[in-house]
């Protein structure tokens, strides 16, 4: 599989404690890389900004049956978490099996293979 350079950059930003997101200078819409065009207003005025390192859990699921790359790791939990800036990100839960909705989690990444990255969230409490 081809490694996407934009995703490596995004993941390394998280690994280095400097995650980023995109914000539209015209309409304030927020987004994640690698967009060239604002998905809301269609202008090309997206600007890279620093993203918080914590977010709150918006939805979660415990996965019992998975794709080959993760089949040996079931069960595990995947969450979508919302950052204060408004963007949401999907990642695997670490240091706990379950989380409450609205719980605060810290974003991280794990390297799998040469340039493959897995986004993670861990409870902050």
């Amino acid at each position, binding site marked *: *599989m081809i490694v*996407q350079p934009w*995703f490596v950059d995004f993941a390394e930003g998280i690994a280095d404690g400097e995650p980023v997101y995109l914000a539209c200078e015209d309409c304030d819409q927020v*987004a*994640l890389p690698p967009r060239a065009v604002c*998905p809301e207003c269609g202008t090309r005025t997206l600007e890279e900004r620093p993203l918080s390192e914590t977010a709150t859990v*918006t*939805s*979660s*699921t*415990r*996965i*019992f*049956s*998975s*794709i*080959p*790359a*993760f*089949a040996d*790791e079931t069960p*595990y939990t*995947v969450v*979508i978490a919302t950052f204060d800036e408004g963007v*949401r*990100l*999907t*990642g*695997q839960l670490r240091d706990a099996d379950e989380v409450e*909705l609205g719980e605060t989690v810290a974003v991280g990444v794990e390297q799998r293979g040469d340039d*493959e*990255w*897995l*986004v993670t969230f861990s409870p902050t409490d």
Partner: protein
Amino acid sequence: MTVQIAGVASTPFGEHPDSSTRELFTDAALEALEDASLSVHDVEELYAGNFIGDVTDDQGHVGAMLADYLGARQAASMRTESACASASSAARSGAQAIGAGDADVALVGGVEMMSASGIEEVTDALANAADNEYENEAGLTFPGIYALMAQAYVNEFDATQEELAAVAVKNYENGVSNPISQRQEETDVESVLDSPPVATPLNLQDCCPITDGASAAVLVSESYAEERGLETTVSFVGSGQASDSLALQDRPDLARTRAAERAAEDAYERAGIGPDDVDVVELHDCFTIAEILAIEALGFFERGQGTRGAVEGETAVDGRIPVNTSGGLLAKGHPVGATGVAQIVEITKQLEGRHPNQVEDPTVGLTHTVGGSGASCVVNVLRGGE
């Protein structure tokens, strides 16, 4: 230009270990052409949905392959791909070609062979419909994505797993009467809740099976039908297709399918109808939660009220708005690249009064097919004769 449906057919859905993509599609296409009283040489355009053939068969260029093995080499052929909505896009493309006056006969359909591959390989291939970096690399599966939508819905509207399960109970029951249906057993709420967990809150019986199958429909212009003396009563009167973010995480409301709302609005406008005019529906219940989200997006229920459909019998065969009288994807099965036309086959039979779960005198029927978690959606509207 009015587009008419001259013939339809689906193969039995289930496991076809001794068949293949090209053979199964040919079976459905020949039966549809026979139903239309037309020959393979009458086909001018061929659009066929197929989603994971590149992975399961190591075979691309599927449109030409299907035209070749059907004996329709004169036809312009093309595979349409919009994940699980691929065949609905095929039907839409065929209707557009006839509607524009570019063709008189379009064979539209789809095919998927899934059972010969292992469950993990199929899950992996289907995951190609999701955002590879933001979803698959996080270990998120398709059932997992719908589970996240279900969890968001449960939280927002205080819905229960029992209410989700009611969708499976209804559709399994409908599937038993449908001879092509893969699942031929009824279930009950308790059995759904007791089936093995796949991705919480969804259990195995909340999920559609892995299916081999093919479907085809013959679309013709009204003038061609008259010229050839074809018996056609069902018209293709409107189609809408729209998009949304590829990744679920980019949607402001996880429990809402905006592409379906947009596609429905477009299809209703083109057909000159509203949700209250629809008499029978085949929609994309790949998971129980998906049917609930769909009946809300299509305007049959207010947001947060969709669980009422199966629980209170409003979506039953004899209900206010019958949904998935075929058994739906949950029971009939979901050969992903064929599903959209399989739905058209079922609705055509309803409008012609020859469906195994016939509703009373329907005039307007609707199909709704979702690509991925809702990044694409196609809504097609059919109208029967008076």
